């Protein structure tokens, strides 16, 4: 329990520290109490992000970036397994890995979209060429060509 609490505090502190300054806005009291985040949750989120990236073959499309993210994930797993006291640190690495996997996914997704669009345009261009050729063939079939010079 102490471990989970420590992790929650660390995460909240970390996210507060990096949040941009904004004018205070009056907000209604939250109705539900925020659930504590376990290291398992953080790991699962990172793992899901990794699987999502793999689903579009990001490991091939953006190989180096993916390898970096995977290395982070593997480090976090190793840390978590070897030292139960380093859970908070491992959780932070999992979070970084999740972010990295998401970035990798976005990059691969954009690349795939661009390639798909260009490929579709290539298909359309080829189809147009085939139509032109059919018309030209039909024209030469209709009008017998006279003797060439």
């Amino acid at each position, binding site marked *: 329990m102490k471990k989970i609490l420590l992790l929650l505090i660390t995460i909240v502190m970390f996210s507060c520290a990096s949040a941009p300054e904004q004018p205070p806005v009056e907000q209604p009291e939250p109705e539900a109490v925020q659930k504590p985040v376990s290291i398992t949750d953080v790991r699962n989120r990172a793992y899901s992000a990794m699987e999502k990236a793999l689903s579009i*073959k*990001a490991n091939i499309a953006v190989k180096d970036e993916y390898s970096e993210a995977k290395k982070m994930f593997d480090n976090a797993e190793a840390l978590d397994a070897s030292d139960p006291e380093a859970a908070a640190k491992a959780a932070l690495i999992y979070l970084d890995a999740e972010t990295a996997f998401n970035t990798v996914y976005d990059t691969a997704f954009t*690349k795939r979209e661009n390639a798909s669009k260009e*490929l579709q345009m290539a298909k359309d261009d080829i189809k147009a060429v085939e139509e*032109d050729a059919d018309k030209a063939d039909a024209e030469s079939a209709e009008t017998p*060509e006279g003797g*060439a*010079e």
Partner: protein
Amino acid sequence: MRKILFLTILLSIVLSAGLYSQSLQNNEYYQKSVEYRKMAESALEEGEYDKSYEYAVKSREFAALSKAYIAEMVRAYRARTALAAAKERIELAQRINLENRDPDLFGSSFGYFQDAKSTFDAKNYDESLENSLKVIDLLKDIKGGRVLPAFYEVVLDKAYRDCLWKIAGYDFVYNDPHKWPELYKANKSTFKYPDNPDLIYPGQILKIPSLKGEVRDGTYRK
């Protein structure tokens, strides 16, 4: 058995190559374009998105070249067809001796024909087509067909003696013996005895006047 198989394969390759080359579509650029498209599809499938994009771009470049090639071939085909038609008109004009009958018409037509040929050789197909069409238009009214002789050499044939009546009856003269006076009228001054149309001699050349504007050229000799 192996030999038969080899020959069958060879024959099918030759036949398919023949069929393949029939369409304008199967030009080198088109084939490259399709090749790159397949590579792009394969790369996309494998997650090689950068390569896929790169191949798709190449595929489009070759498709554009193929399109331009087909357009060029169509222009060339049209120009070549028109040039052949123009050539036919010019040859017909030469056969009917248009050069002497209407030197201006023949001269300008021939000039356009020469331009059509030279622009075609220079692959300026649009201009060549334009010039050929001018030739065709200028010579559209000339009539072709058989060129009839303008002169007839009288022969001595004991079995079938030549006389103006018989000569006028030949299909290449008037195809009508009753028109013999036309021959007589046109040649009377050259007769040994101008008042006697029955006296013609072997070797005598008779002029055959054109009665309905038919084209006549050369001398008929048996």
